[in-house]
Every structure is written in structure tokens, then in C-alpha cells.
């Protein structure tokens, strides 16, 4: 092993300490996770049993939990959310890899899904399709922030009812 000068050795020591400090400060940035509620609206047409809802994760690793059905409108008339029980819906998570798409049915409704895709698709299926319906659901997204304190909601995590951007 080639010997190095005392000055060089001191410089390397100092640099190693600085690197260790930097890594330690960087790795603890997300030691507390952010947790935000996101609201999504799903519209079903007459006779339509399945509708997709998307979660924009924008590359971040998120855990999404569908919490509850907030409101249901059938044919323009408010209906008690309990009229469409959560068990009436099946949420399906689909992951696209190359040309193939794999879908997993999430039962129960509030199954946890952690993905780092740019967008996650969840297919909601209803059993009673006699009337058009607008359903408002509440989901929660949990993920780490960044080192500048940006929470997922400020980073664009949201639910939407159209396809990927």
C-alpha cells in the first residue's frame, strides 16, 4: 500500500468525515412520513359497471388506501353512501410491464397498495348498473417527503378519473 503524506492523510480524514455527515443528514430526511387524504370522483354511465381511477404518484413510492365512499349520486339524486356498500365494489390494481398488464383484485376494498409507478390504475366495478352514478371516494396516500419538506400533496399526488398523462 502506497504511503501518503500526513497532510494528505488529514485531508482524506476530513473528507471522509464530511461525507459521513452528509450521508447521515441525507438518509434521515424522510424519517417522518407524510400522510394526506385525497378525494376522487368516479362517474358511471348507465349500464356501465366498471370505471377506472388513477393515482398520480409521479415516481414516488406511495401507500394508497381506499378509505370510504363519501357520497353517491344515482341519476343525479343523492343517495346515502351506504346504499352502495363498499362491498359492492371491487378495486383492481393493474400494473403494466412492457406489453403485458397484470391486474390484482383488491379485497377488501381498503387493501393497501404500495407502488412506485408514475401512475397507478384502480378499476372499480359496481354490481348495480341500472342508473348512472357519481361516486366520491376518499383515499389516503402515505409516503416520504423530500429533504425540503415537500409533502406528497404539494408534489401532486391526486386521484383522477382519466387515463395516464
Amino acid at each position, binding site marked *: 500500500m502506497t*504511503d501518503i503524506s*500526513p497532510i494528505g*492523510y*488529514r485531508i*482524506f*480524514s*476530513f473528507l*471522509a*468525515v464530511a*461525507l*459521513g*455527515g*452528509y*450521508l*447521515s*443528514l*441525507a*438518509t*434521515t*430526511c*424522510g*424519517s*417522518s*412520513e407524510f400522510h394526506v387524504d385525497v378525494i376522487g370522483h368516479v362517474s358511471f354511465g348507465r349500464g356501465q359497471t366498471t370505471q377506472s381511477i388513477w393515482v398520480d404518484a409521479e415516481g*414516488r*413510492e406511495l401507500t394508497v388506501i381506499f378509505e370510504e365512499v363519501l357520497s353517491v349520486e344515482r341519476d343525479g339524486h343523492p343517495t346515502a353512501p351506504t346504499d352502495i356498500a363498499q362491498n359492492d365494489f371491487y378495486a383492481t390494481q393493474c400494473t403494466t410491464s412492457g406489453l403485458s398488464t397484470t391486474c390484482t383484485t383488491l379485497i377488501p376494498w381498503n387493501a393497501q397498495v*404500495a407502488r*412506485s409507478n408514475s401512475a397507478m390504475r384502480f378499476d372499480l366495478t359496481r354490481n348495480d348498473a341500472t342508473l348512472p352514478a357519481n361516486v366520491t371516494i376518499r383515499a389516503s396516500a402515505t*409516503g*416520504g*417527503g*423530500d*429533504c*425540503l*419538506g415537500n409533502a406528497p400533496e404539494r408534489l401532486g399526488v391526486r386521484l383522477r378519473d382519466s387515463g395516464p398523462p
Partner: protein
Amino acid sequence: MTPHNQDSSLRRARAAGDWMLHPMALGAMATLALNDHVLKAAYPSWWTGKLSDVAGIIFFPWLLVSFWELSRQALRRPWQANRVVLLSSIALTALVFAAVKVNDQAGTALRVVLVHFWSSIATYAPWLVPGRVRHTVDPTDLLVLPLLWLPWWLGTRRIARTSRLIQAG
């Protein structure tokens, strides 16, 4: 050991903060950097979650010892770390690690401090601010705490060897 090697070893032992040049510390830092910035994104899983904890818990006590030595040297005081300094660093590491991993409020408090720190850095050198690094409050991470034995064991050997070299010199 030849006189030249002994002199070289002694000189090295006398560089404040050179704990972080030990292969164990360098290896742990490389592992932490690789895991946080590459592996966690490519292979998000249980083991990548634990790997950073393992790497961090191994080198962080020695980082504290190094800071102690550099501070003492800046104050022109005797700075060679002894067993008390090493043990204090290990105890502080265990305490902070456990608090952050078990208590949400401790984790939040730490995050607030770090956000202020990195926001200040971003004003002058935004390129230094790291990307998002995911950490979770997970009590099972405490399983890595027994690994603190490694920096203690190697650290006490290092302190003993340094003392012998100084006495011999």
C-alpha cells in the same frame, strides 16, 4: 513491525477523524449511499429498508467520535478518543435511532430540523440537497441495534492499538 511502519502507523493514528477512513466505515458509507440512492428505488423491499439501517448503525458512532476528535483538535485540546468517548457515541446513536424509529413525534422533530437545515443549504448550494430518501417509523428496525457491538469491538481494539503505538513512540 519496522520502525518505519511503526512511525507511519503512529502518524496515522494521530490524524483526528481518521476513524472514517477505516475499511468498515468506508464500506458502510458506500453501502448506505448505494442503497439509499439506487437500490431502494430499483428494488423496494424489506431488505433494502433494513440495509440502510445496518450501514448507518455501523458507521454513525465512529462519525460522532470523529466529530469529537476534530472539535477537540480545533480547540487545541488533547483529542485522542478513549473508551468513554466511544461508548458515549454508541449510546447516543442507540438513543437517537430508537427514538426516531419508535416515536412519531421524535421522527417529526428530527425531520423539521433537517428541513430547516437543507432549506438553508438550498439557498446557497441547491445541488447539494439530496433527493427524497424514504424512511419509515418502524419498530422492527430496532433489530439492528445489536450490531452496535461491531463499532464497539473494533473501536476498542483501535483505541488500544493507538495507545500502544503512542507509548512505543
